[in-house]
């Protein structure tokens, strides 16, 4: 056990030495890993935000609002409610009077609510709000209800949501492709850097082999070197993405687009995931880069 530890310490030391000797090319590797991860971060934020939008719109819009004409009789109201309820996938049907609608609107507008003060008579219509299990049940219901007398308009957002989902899928796919290419490039750059260390230490490696060093002992330092490059690159990109996004987020929310930031992922929620993902990918790229170069160079 103690022997293993000593060997491990040696390997670690040599890994650090290799990194220091190669700091020129190392810088290139670190920047390439950082660049990949920063782009990954941006794509990730985009995907998460779009997911947010989709989710938000879905919950907001898996309901249908049936706007009613004014002055309907009790009977007409009942007919409409029945017609709405009598459908597949309907969770609930709720009446919303024009007064309630105005209250809700005032709440949503918060500071600007005073604008609504002078509205007399209340221009908002009475309505039924139908909660659906899923947006896909909407078409049926809308067809049935829209021609009933007393119904002024039926509002729902199926098209928007579908378009949004398609768009989100494009972004996801594009992101994955871009990241895949970039990961490949940085593995290549790392493996070139490690090749430099291997060549510089060729003599040493050769002697090691004859004295009976295990493959692990010979490869260890190079893999450690690659992992160190990966870790530094990851740390750098975590800082960049974290502070950069924080800055962007604040700038956007300051400039009145509060509505917009609701859909953005909050920077605080992001930091933990970003740290874990970036560290893992950085280390992975580093280790893989070393292994690729070692496979060709260290055939015993």
């Amino acid at each position, binding site marked *: 056990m*103690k022997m293993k530890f*000593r060997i491990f310490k040696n390997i670690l030391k040599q890994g650090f030495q290799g990194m220091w000797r190669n700091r020129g090319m190392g810088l290139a590797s670190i920047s390439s890993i950082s660049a990949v991860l920063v782009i990954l971060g941006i794509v990730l934020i985009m995907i998460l935000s779009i997911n947010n939008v989709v989710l938000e719109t879905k919950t907001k819009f898996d309901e249908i609002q049936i706007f009613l004409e004014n002055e309907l009789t009790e009977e007409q109201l009942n007919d409409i409610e029945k017609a709405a309820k009598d459908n597949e996938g309907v969770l609930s049907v709720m009446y919303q009077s024009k007064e309630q609608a105005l209250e809700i609107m005032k709440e949503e507008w918060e500071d600007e609510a005073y604008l609504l003060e002078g509205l007399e008579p209340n221009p908002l219509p009475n309505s039924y709000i139908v909660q659906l299990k899923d947006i896909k049940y909407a078409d049926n219901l809308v067809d049935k209800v829209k021609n009933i007398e007393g119904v002024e308009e039926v509002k729902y957002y199926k098209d928007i949501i579908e378009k949004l989902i398609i768009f989100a899928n494009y972004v996801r796919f594009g992101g994955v492709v871009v990241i895949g290419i970039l990961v490949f490039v940085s593995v290549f750059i790392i493996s070139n850097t490690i090749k430099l260390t291997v060549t510089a230490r060729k003599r040493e490696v050769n*002697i*090691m*082999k*004859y*004295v*009976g060093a295990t*493959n692990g002992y010979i490869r260890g330092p190079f893999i450690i070197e690659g992992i160190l490059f990966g870790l530094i690159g990851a740390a750098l990109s975590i800082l960049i993405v974290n502070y950069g996004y924080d800055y962007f987020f604040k700038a956007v929310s300051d400039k009145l687009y509060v509505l917009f930031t609701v859909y953005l992922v909050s920077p605080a929620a992001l930091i933990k995931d970003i740290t874990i993902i970036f560290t893992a990918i950085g280390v992975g790229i580093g280790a893989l880069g070393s292994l690729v170069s070692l496979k060709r160079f260290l055939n*015993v």
Partner: protein
Amino acid sequence: MIKFTNTGKEYKNGVKALSNINLNIKKGEFVFIVGPSGAGKSTLIKLLLKEEDPTEGKIYLNDMDITKVKNRRIPFIRRNIGVVFQDFRLLPNKTVYENVAFAMEIIGAHPKEIRRRVPMILSMVDLSKKADCYPDQLSGGEHQRVSIARSIVNNPPVLIADEPTGNLDPETAWEIMKVLREINRRGTTILMATHAKDIVDSMKKRVVAIEAGKVVRDEEKGGYENEVSNI
């Protein structure tokens, strides 16, 4: 200790480097491998070091069949064999002491053991005074003695020397031979490939001559050339 039975090696490009080699080297023996360049001496050494696998026959080391072994086990087989090369192969950025200690660090020896053993080996090859020198401050003979010290510091039962005197003047070569003889006297089996006729002739050790991939002569207390032509 070392046994070749009907061993042959054909390289992938079709060159038949060795064929039908039968050798039995006992513990504590000192054996010269002689023969012209390209006869197969290097291949024989490569087979023992597991750089190459034989294509025919078997090889035993320490009563262990090493004809075919997993890559993972090769380092552990090599720890039984010290190697000395014609070109010394020292690390230029390490001192004499560090070059020798390096071989012990690799196998995870205890620092205390390293501090005890390295000076002992250095004094054995008469280099105690040069322990803190770097290789470029050493003469050719000193280079080779460092390389010998490194090869035996882990106490391997077998020492392979591939033309250890090839780059040295005759006087220095004899210095090296004295060191090797001393190591052999302490029980290490030595296998030495060489072209140095005078050394082989005056050492009076077992001589194995290889020509065109075959053992053409194997005699105790032999000379570089066979006795008929020697007269």
